[in-house]
């Protein structure tokens, strides 16, 4: 009889005791930060870059941010939203973190933001770029601030750039989920506003590795192909596209050529153009120092995932400095951070009134060359054009922009699709 009892009660009692002990020892000038990233699963490489980027800043600053000692607690969400929600709750309820950072995919962002509201804890999204979190839904999330980007933010200037290249018709192939829709939507809007036409949209499921069914369907009369690939899809698509005999220029979303996997790609990636708020090949002293330090410690070139979290640490540092080395409570924290203007590795960063960054957007092209004194020629995202101070609304009137629906699979509608 006792066995059944013990098995039920045991974990409960043990849990209760552990928690009581833990909360007794909390307190003092300590900043408890929860970090949610994929440590296992198909996005584990991304998660590692995220944690490494954040950790590098901590290492360079004696594990203090704004003068307070940092306790960083990393939890694995396997890039699954419901696991992320459980871990976030655990971080808040059990570890009493002051804030939690992270998540990778847009669905995780949409899932974690309500947790921050419910638990009145700061949530900093360094990666999930889901547009609406800082647009139509911002009022639901008073403790939320984004330090990365919004999905369509780089796409808007990119559409204009595409017009300037003389492209008239573009075929799109993008991962079938919220992030894909928003990146493509932003591009479609600005590209069609300056006279271009999107003639096709193909949506392979997130995580597809075999593009056999999709590549042959790409319309032959397209001037260029716009691809948006994420995670395990990124290395496979250019390979298969090249093997299918493609000669059209390939442009794409920033994650299609991001440094998290670029070094593992082959020559088929050369020439790919994409927009993003960061490139590891950015030729500024600050970036060069960052790349060298990161590479020396982790033996790989930093990706935007690394930079975004490094800069997030920097932003937290500046915020806590301004509030006297102590955590000022969630509302004040978010307010102070949203008022910052800093010079980050990616360039100047400030925030708009919906708590999304205003920053440079770089148009980058994959080239094989030597950089920063490294002696091997490697693949780098050379910056070929910079659009400064780009907000999530680009040149559009904010009110008008917010009236239109969030970019989705069917919006903007594919009016020119053949």
């Amino acid at each position, binding site marked *: *009889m006792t066995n*059944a009892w013990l098995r039920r009660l045991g974990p*409960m009692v043990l849990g209760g005791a552990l928690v009581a002990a833990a909360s007794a020892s909390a307190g003092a000038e300590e900043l408890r930060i929860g970090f949610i990233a994929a440590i296992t699963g198909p996005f584990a490489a991304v998660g590692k870059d995220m944690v490494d980027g954040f950790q590098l800043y901590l290492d360079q600053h004696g594990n203090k941010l704004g003068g307070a000692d940092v306790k960083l607690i990393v939890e*694995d969400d396997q890039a699954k*939203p419901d696991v992320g929600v*459980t871990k976030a709750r655990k971080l808040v309820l059990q570890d009493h973190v002051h804030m939690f950072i992270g998540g990778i995919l847009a669905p995780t962002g949409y899932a974690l933001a309500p947790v921050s509201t419910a638990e009145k804890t700061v949530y900093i999204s360094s990666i999930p770029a889901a547009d609406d979190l800082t647009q139509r839904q911002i009022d*639901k999330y008073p403790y939320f601030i984004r330090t990365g980007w919004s999905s369509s933010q780089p796409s808007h200037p990119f559409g204009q750039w595409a017009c300037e290249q003389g492209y008239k018709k573009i075929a799109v192939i993008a991962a079938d989920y919220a992030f894909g829709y928003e990146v493509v939507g932003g591009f479609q809007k600005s590209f069609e506003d300056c006279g271009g036409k999107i003639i096709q949209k193909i949506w392979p499921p997130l995580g597809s590795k075999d593009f056999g069914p999709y590549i042959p369907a790409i319309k032959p009369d397209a001037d260029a192909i716009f691809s948006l690939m994420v995670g395990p899809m990124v290395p496979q698509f250019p390979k298969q596209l090249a093997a299918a005999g493609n000669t059209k220029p390939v442009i794409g979303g920033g994650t299609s050529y991001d440094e998290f996997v670029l070094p593992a790609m082959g020559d088929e990636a050369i020439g790919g153009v994409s927009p993003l708020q960061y490139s590891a090949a950015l030729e500024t002293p600050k970036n060069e120092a960052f790349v060298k330090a990161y590479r020396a410690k982790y033996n790989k070139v930093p990706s935007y995932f690394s930079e975004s979290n490094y800069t997030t640490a920097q932003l937290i540092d500046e915020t806590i400095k301004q509030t006297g080395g102590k955590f000022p409570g969630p509302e004040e924290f978010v307010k102070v951070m949203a008022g910052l203007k800093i010079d980050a590795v990616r360039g100047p960063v400030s925030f708009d009134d919906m708590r999304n960054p205003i920053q440079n957007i770089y148009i980058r092209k994959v080239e094989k060359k030597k950089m920063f004194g490294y002696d091997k020629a490697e693949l780098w995202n050379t910056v070929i054009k910079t659009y400064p101070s780009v907000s999530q609304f680009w040149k559009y009137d904010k009110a008008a922009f917010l009236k239109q629906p969030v970019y989705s*699979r069917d919006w903007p509608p594919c009016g020119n699709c053949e």
Partner: protein
Amino acid sequence: MTSRRKVWAVIAAVAALAIVVPFTSSFVILLATRALAFSILVMSLDILLGFTGLASLGQAAYFGVGAYMTAILAAKYQIGLGFDFWLVVVGGLLIGAALAAVFGLLAIRASGVYFLMITLALGQCVWGLAYRWNSLTNGDNGINIQVRPRFGIDLANEVTFFYVVLGLFAVSLFAMYVLVRSPFGRSLAGIRERELRMKILGYNTWLHKYVAFIISGAFGGLSGVLWAHTAGIVSPVNVELTTSVDALLMAVLGGAGTLVGGAIGAFIVIALREYLSTVVPWWQYVLGGVYVLTILYLPSGLMGIPARIRQRRGALGKREGDKTLATAPS
């Protein structure tokens, strides 16, 4: 332990849970609520596995259908967030039963490993739809349920919600207990042991199995409804093969054929997964190891330990409570 004492032990354990858990941390309450919700699914599987002798790798289908129904109604149509929460609960039972009724027509003809395969295939069908039918299920993004129902009491309060789930768990457990002790339940056990003999005796074994399948699906749907509100988000992950496998392993770990064993298995695995994973990085080895060892050395699961100890001590040898997992060869 006689049946009477087992029953009292279970009642006492449930009461203990009700009393102790609210005084632990919010996180433990959250985990306990999740474990209770998932336990209903595992117990529904046990009806098939332990009592009818049918191992299914597709229970997640009913779980998923209940969860998605709840999420879609709540997020898109604002249904189920007030007193109509109880309607949704009944709806979960019905939709799980309906799906099982359809699937059962295809699956019940098979048995043993073939049943395993076909339930796997059916589960994958549901997964495929959840994953790709974007307009209905939001595909990979999943559906967020932003608020918990309020009807006089506010389920957003974790303790209140815990009691509601515990209550439904207790009701489900009771209902299933009554079922397996009933003449119908006993014929199921007979089918598990020796289907041929039951057929010869004139039982319509197909019908019995079919009904058991539907009932199991109904409880699976209910479990999904509760899970949707516990987690606040429903995504194709809830309908994956690994979820069905999880349920099966929990049922075996706890002890197939004991009903409560399913709940025990669920609690242990969830505790290990959520708790151990934050303490040590090699928790998955522990979990895998526990499974392997249980399967090798404890075929009756953890609930079978007392019986085994008694056996070792040379007591009355095999009793009626000592069930094994071996299904009749097909």
